[in-house]
C-alpha cells in the first residue's frame, strides 16, 4: 500500500505542468539569495539604512499576517455557524493561511539582523511584556503551531494514521478556539506596534485606535482572502463551487467594511483631523487611494446583490479589499512614517526577489498540496458524506473528507 502511494506520487510529480517547475526554480533562486543575505548581512543585500530601518520585508509581514487571517475567520465561521457548505472551502483557506504564516515567519527571520539569535524571544527571562514586538513574535510562533494542528488531519488522512487523527478530532474545538483568541490578540498587536510612533507616524494613520483598526481590517481581509482563495483555486483546479456561501461571506465583508470606514472617519473627526484628508499633499492621495480602493469600491461591489452572487464580482471585490489592505500597510509601515528629508527608500532587487519568491513558493506549495492531499472536495460529496455520518464525526477540525 505504502509503496503504491510512493510510486503514485512520483508518477504524478513527473506529470506536473511546466509552470510548477518554473515556480520551483524561482523559489530556489529566492532561497539561494536568502542564504546569501543571511551570510553577508543586511547592508549589501537591502536598501535599508538608519534612515529607513524597516522596509519591504516588514511590509510583507504586516500584509500577510492579516491576509492569513482567512484561516481563523473561516475556522470561526465554520465552528460557530456550523453550516455544511463552509466546510468545503475551509480546507483550502486554512491551507492558504498556514502557508501565509509559514512565509511570514521565514521573511521575519530574513529581516532579523541577528537572526542567529532569534531564539532569544523564547527565553522567558528576556521577555518584555510591554513590547508589542514581543507579543507579535509570541503569537506568530504559537499560532503557526496551531495551524499545523489544524492542517494535520489532511496529511494524517493521507497517511491513514488513525490514532493522532482521532486525538486531533477530539481536541478540534479547543484548537480552533485557541487559534481564534491568539489571532484576535495578534492581529491587533500588529497595529499596536505603531502606537509608540505618535510623533513619527502621520496623523492620518496614527490613532490610539490602531489595534482596533488593524483587528477589523484583518477580519474583513481574512474573509476576502477566503473568498479570493476559494474562487481562484476552485477555478484553477476545475472544481465546482457553490457561490451562495461566498456571497454570504461577501455580505459580512460589506458590513465590516462599513464599520471600518465609520471607525476611520469618526476617529479622524473626533481628533479634529478630517482636514488632513485634503491638506497632506501626496499622503492625502495615498490615504484616499487606500480608502477608495480597499473600502469604498469593494463596498459598492459587495453591496450589490447581483455582483455579490457572481464569480467575477466576488473575485473583483475580494481582490480590491486585499489591494487596499496592501496600500494601508505600506502607508502605515513606510510612507506615513516620518523619514529624513531628502532621502527615499526603494527596495533593493534582492529584497524584491526574496519577497516575490516567498509568494511564489507559497503558491507552489498550495498547488502541490492540492494535488497530493485531500484539500478540494465536491459539494455533493461533502453533503452526502455529512448526511450519512452526522453525529459520528461532528467535530472534524475544519473540513470533512470522505474516507476513501
Amino acid at each position: 500500500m505504502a509503496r503504491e502511494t510512493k510510486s503514485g506520487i512520483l508518477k504524478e510529480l513527473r506529470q506536473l505542468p511546466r509552470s510548477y517547475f518554473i515556480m520551483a526554480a524561482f523559489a530556489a533562486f529566492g532561497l539561494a539569495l536568502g542564504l546569501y543575505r543571511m551570510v553577508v548581512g543586511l547592508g549589501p543585500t537591502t536598501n535599508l539604512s538608519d534612515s529607513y530601518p524597516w522596509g519591504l520585508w516588514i511590509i510583507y509581514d504586516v500584509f500577510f499576517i492579516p491576509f492569513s487571517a482567512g484561516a481563523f475567520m473561516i475556522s470561526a465561521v465554520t465552528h460557530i455557524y456550523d453550516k455544511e457548505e463552509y466546510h468545503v472551502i475551509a480546507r483550502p483557506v486554512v491551507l492558504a493561511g498556514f502557508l501565509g504564516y509559514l512565509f511570514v515567519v521565514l521573511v521575519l527571520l530574513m529581516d532579523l539582523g541577528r537572526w542567529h539569535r532569534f531564539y532569544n524571544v523564547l527565553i522567558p527571562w528576556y521577555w518584555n511584556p510591554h513590547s508589542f514586538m514581543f507579543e507579535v513574535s509570541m503569537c506568530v510562533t504559537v499560532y503557526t503551531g496551531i495551524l499545523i494542528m489544524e492542517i494535520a488531519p489532511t496529511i494524517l488522512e493521507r497517511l491513514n494514521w488513525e490514532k493522532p487523527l482521532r486525538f486531533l478530532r477530539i481536541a478540534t474545538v479547543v484548537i480552533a478556539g485557541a487559534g481564534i483568541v491568539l489571532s484576535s490578540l495578534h492581529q491587533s498587536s500588529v497595529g499596536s506596534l505603531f502606537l509608540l510612533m505618535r510623533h513619527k507616524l502621520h496623523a492620518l494613520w496614527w490613532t490610539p485606535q490602531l489595534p482596533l483598526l488593524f483587528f477589523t481590517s484583518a477580519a474583513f481581509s481574512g474573509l476576502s482572502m477566503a473568498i479570493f482563495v476559494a474562487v481562484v483555486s476552485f477555478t484553477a483546479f476545475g472544481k465546482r463551487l457553490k457561490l451562495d456561501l461566498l456571497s454570504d461571506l461577501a455580505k459580512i465583508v460589506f458590513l465590516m467594511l462599513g464599520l471600518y470606514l465609520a471607525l476611520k472617519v469618526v476617529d479622524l473627526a473626533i481628533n479634529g483631523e478630517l482636514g488632513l484628508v485634503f491638506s497632506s499633499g501626496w499622503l492625502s492621495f495615498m490615504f484616499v487611494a487606500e480608502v477608495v480602493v480597499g473600502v469604498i469600491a469593494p463596498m459598492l461591489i459587495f453591496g450589490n446583490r447581483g455582483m455579490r452572487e457572481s464569480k467575477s464580482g466576488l473575485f473583483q471585490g475580494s481582490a480590491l479589499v486585499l489591494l487596499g489592505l496592501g496600500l494601508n500597510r505600506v502607508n502605515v509601515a513606510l510612507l506615513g512614517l516620518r523619514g529624513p528629508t531628502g532621502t527615499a527608500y526603494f527596495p533593493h532587487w534582492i529584497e524584491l526577489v526574496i519577497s516575490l519568491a516567498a509568494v511564489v513558493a507559497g503558491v507552489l506549495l498550495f498547488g502541490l498540496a492540492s494535488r497530493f492531499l485531500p484539500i478540494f472536495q465536491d459539494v455533493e460529496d461533502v453533503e452526502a458524506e455529512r448526511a450519512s455520518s452526522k453525529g459520528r464525526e461532528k467535530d472534524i477540525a475544519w473540513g470533512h473528507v470522505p474516507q476513501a
Partner: protein
Amino acid sequence: MNRRDFLKLSGAGAGSLFLGGAQTARAREVWDGKAMLYDATLCIGCRACQAACRREQGLPAETGEADLHDKPRELSASTRTLIKVAEVQQTGEWSFVKRQCMHCLHPACVSACPVGALQQTEDGAVVYRGERCIGCRYCQVACPFGIPKFEWDKSFPYIEKCDFCEDRLGEGLPPACADVCPTGAITFGDRDSLIAEARKRIEENPDKYVDHIYGEHELGGTSVLYLSSVPFEKLGLPDVGSEPVTELSEAIATYGTPGVALSVAGLLGGLYYWFSSHEHAEAEAAKSHEEEA
C-alpha cells in the same frame, strides 16, 4: 473633552477598558537620576567631546568626503555623539548643537525591545545589552529622536547608541564628553540641580536664551537637557509635547492584552455553549418528532 481624555476613552474602545488611571511600570513621580546639561550658547564646536567619546568607547573615526579626517555628518554606528551646526535662515542666527541619546525618563526603545536588550539603569542611563539583541530594529523605528543606529555592514550587527558612559558612572565619574568639554557647555550632575542651574541661567540672561529647558518635560522628561539661543526645532529637537509615548502602548499591552484574550475566550465559550445546547434541543425535538411518526 480634551485630546488626552479622548485617547483614554478610545483606548477603551480598542479593548482595554481598564486604561483610565493606568500607570506605566517605570513612571516615577520623583526622578533622582543623573543628567547632562548642554548649553549651546557656550559651545565653541571644538568637537573635543566627539573625540573623547570615540576614545572612551573605542569607536573608529569616520573618514569621508575630501579626505577630511573624522567629519561625520550624522550619528551612526561608529559615532555616538556629534556636534552639528544649525542655521536659522530667516535671521542669520546660528548655533552648535550636540546630538546624542536623550536618555528619556520613559524611553520608547526600552518599551519597544521584545527581548529587553535596551534597559534603563538606576542612574537613568539607557543602555544596550547586545547579547540579547535579535536585530529587529523596532528601537530605531520607535525612538522619537532617531538615536539608535545599526551596524548595517556587518553580518551579525549590533545596535549602537550612547550609554551615558555607564562604566564611568559606575566609578563615580561623569561621561567622557562632559569631562573633556573646555568651555563648560556640557555639565553633568543630579537632574534636579541641573534644571535649577539652567533656570538660573535663563533668568540671568533672558535676552540670550529661549525661555525653555528642552528635556525638562519633553516626553515626560529626558536626562539630557538643552539650553539654546535659537528655537529648538532648528537644532533638530522636535516639539514632542510632555506626554511619554510609552504610556498608551504599555497600558494597552498590560491591560488590553489579557482583556482581549479573556473577552474573546468568554465570547467564544458563550457562543459555543449556546449553539451546542441549541443544537441539542433541536436534535431532541427531531428525535421526538421521528418517534411520533
